[in-house]
């Protein structure tokens, strides 16, 4: 199990690095999808198959498709020259220094944390559902309200008055 975890983790880290350092928008998105799939494998190994499946269906399968859809519409995949101007190598110095400080911090902190062994038995969808709708009901409802606000906003932005029956009859 450990071997599989390390393989998935290495794939996730490499693909994430490729995603943020790539110049081609679509290729970066593909690496991001790969990283999400690797994270889903890690969830599966931690005996949480339901979350693993949701990671694939929702993040890799739905949200990333929308990202690719928008990138395709704007056609920014092939404009490599502007990307080059934005991504100068010296820009990486400060963020990577800060990230290194955080990494040292994290490693020092991890020393004191007891590692939690994953349960032998997988956590089934039924258990997840029961705990979501009893213990964590408030969280679910808040998330639902947030999504509802998004839906109403999208509806408001997308709604148009229907002017005439057919576009050929329109007078401009």
């Amino acid at each position, binding site marked *: 199990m450990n071997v599989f975890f390390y393989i998935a983790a290495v794939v996730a880290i490499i693909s994430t690095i490729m995603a943020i350092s790539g110049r081609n928008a679509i290729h970066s998105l593909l690496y991001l999808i790969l990283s999400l799939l690797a994270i889903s494998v890690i969830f599966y190994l931690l005996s949480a198959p339901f979350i693993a499946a949701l990671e694939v269906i929702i993040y890799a399968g739905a949200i990333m498709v929308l990202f690719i*859809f928008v990138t395709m519409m704007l056609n920014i995949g092939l404009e490599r020259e502007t990307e080059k101007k934005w991504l100068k190598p010296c820009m990486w110095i400060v963020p990577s220094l800060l990230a290194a400080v955080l990494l040292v911090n994290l490693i020092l902190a991890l020393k004191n944390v007891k590692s939690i062994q994953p349960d032998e038995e997988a956590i089934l969808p039924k258990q997840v559902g029961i705990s979501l709708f009893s213990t964590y009901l408030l969280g679910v409802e808040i998330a639902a309200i947030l999504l509802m606000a998004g839906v109403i906003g999208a509806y408001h932005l997308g709604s148009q008055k229907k002017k005439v029956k057919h576009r050929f009859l329109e007078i401009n």
Partner: protein
Amino acid sequence: MKYVFIIAGVLIITLSIAAGLIWVERRLLSVWQDRLGPNRVGPFGLGQVVADTIKLFFKEDWVPSFSDRPVFILAPGILLITILLTFAVVPFGPNFYVFDSNIGVLFFLGNSSLGVYSIVLGGWASNNKYSLIGAMRASAQMLTYEVFMGLSLMGVVMMADSFSFCKIVEAQKDGWFFIPQFIGFIVFFIAGIAETHRLPFDIPEAEGELIAGYHSEYSGMKFGMFFVGEYLGITLISALISTLFFGGWLGPSFLPPVFWFLFKTFFFICVFILLRASLPRPRYDQLMELGWKILLPLSLLNLLITGAILIFLK
């Protein structure tokens, strides 16, 4: 060792069904259109399958110079991988399956949502405006129909009390689910057609408007993979309809269970072909309207009513 045989068996069955469908579809279409169809090569024209396959293998496999080469080559593979992976969780018989996953239904939904990338990336990487339009239509269509494809299955999952395909089949011993879950069946069937982008929902390729849509630039075996992937998709959706709503391998005991499964699957494949022969293609906005305004509320209603009845009966 047993698993190696089962995996090989499932692969051979699915791939030969997909290849055979080239012939089946043409012959059935010609029956419904009152003509003969391919009947020259071999007995009943069966050699047409071999002839077509050889043709596909020996055609020039051209990668356009203006395309995004790695993505262009990757795209057809994604389609085949996601569909063939899903066959791993489909039970062909009582003990004839590769992997009985306790998240089987979700595994199928995840794979089908990854299958979208094949079409979208294929169309984008071709760097051709017709292909791009096809890819954009495909992403909107498949994203829409995925939403209630998942929702329509939740009624079945609630009744069987499990996401595992094997348990869903066993739960249908007293009655097939297509009677209590009739709305779910209809919604899943329509979503299945849209998801495999078959006629009448072949808007991403729409040969009258977009040449061949997302695979205009593909040739040789790369086109062949899209071609076989489409037939594999039909086989998969038919197999899932028979598993989820029509009792899978259950049937009278005078014939082996695998036969019943294949018989039901073949029946639904024929229904798919009949739909192609008889229905015109809707307009793009009509397709979206049907999805969001009719099928989504229907599947939500089905979910609510099924849940209420199940709680009431407990």
